[in-house]
């Protein structure tokens, strides 16, 4: 569901970061539940493994997500935000190389297309 912020109040001396929405007006909260997908469980598991092995703290994940622009933060699903932040932090911590990630994504896309699946190759920015 698309979020619609009806104001962008700035109180106090510091700018409000994108996740700090307390007191802002929004449209109704989508309270519908769904079973976690396999993808969502894998993202969760990946985060636990990385945090458990001290690659970064969950505080860093939050910081990475909070750095997104408002349109991006509001526009992508919860676990996609995690996935993107994990990608950014793995590069930041020099665990993986950005180019290597792109090459690997491309390889996986090729394989899935060969299997007859429709693939969205839009880059993750």
């Amino acid at each position, binding site marked *: 569901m698309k979020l619609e912020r009806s104001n962008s109040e700035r109180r*106090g*001396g510091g700018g409000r970061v994108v996740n700090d929405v307390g007191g802002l007006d929004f449209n109704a909260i989508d309270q519908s539940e769904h079973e976690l997908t396999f993808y969502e469980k894998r993202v969760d598991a990946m985060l636990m493994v990385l945090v458990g092995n001290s690659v970064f703290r969950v505080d*860093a994940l939050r910081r990475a997500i909070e750095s997104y622009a408002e349109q991006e933060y509001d526009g992508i699903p919860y676990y996609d935000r995690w996935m993107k932040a994990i990608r950014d932090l793995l590069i930041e911590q020099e665990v993986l190389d950005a180019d290597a990630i792109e090459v690997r994504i491309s390889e996986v896309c090729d394989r899935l297309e060969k299997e007859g699946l429709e693939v969205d190759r839009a880059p993750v920015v």
Partner: protein
Amino acid sequence: MLNSIPPQRFKAGDHVRVLDRPSIGHCRTPVYLRGRSGIIIGVAGRYLDPEKLAYHKPGMPAHLLYRIRFRQVNIWDTYTGTDADDLEADIFEYWLENATKENKK
């Protein structure tokens, strides 16, 4: 070192105000509580500093985290509920100052 831990500045029942200051980077103190006053309920624990952990720093020194009760009428300038409505939030000690009473901002 145990003796390097600074003394606890606040106790249950103390009136405190959340500092109304800018933050840079990762911060757990929500904007809507900055400058607002409440009463200390107790200490939630002592935790490594998330503002530093977020940048891969050790997060030292650890800070006391207090649970604070705010009256909704003291938070929202246009609140229309009753005076009895409240809200509890956990705020780190270094974000708090003494307040003489539970006054509005």
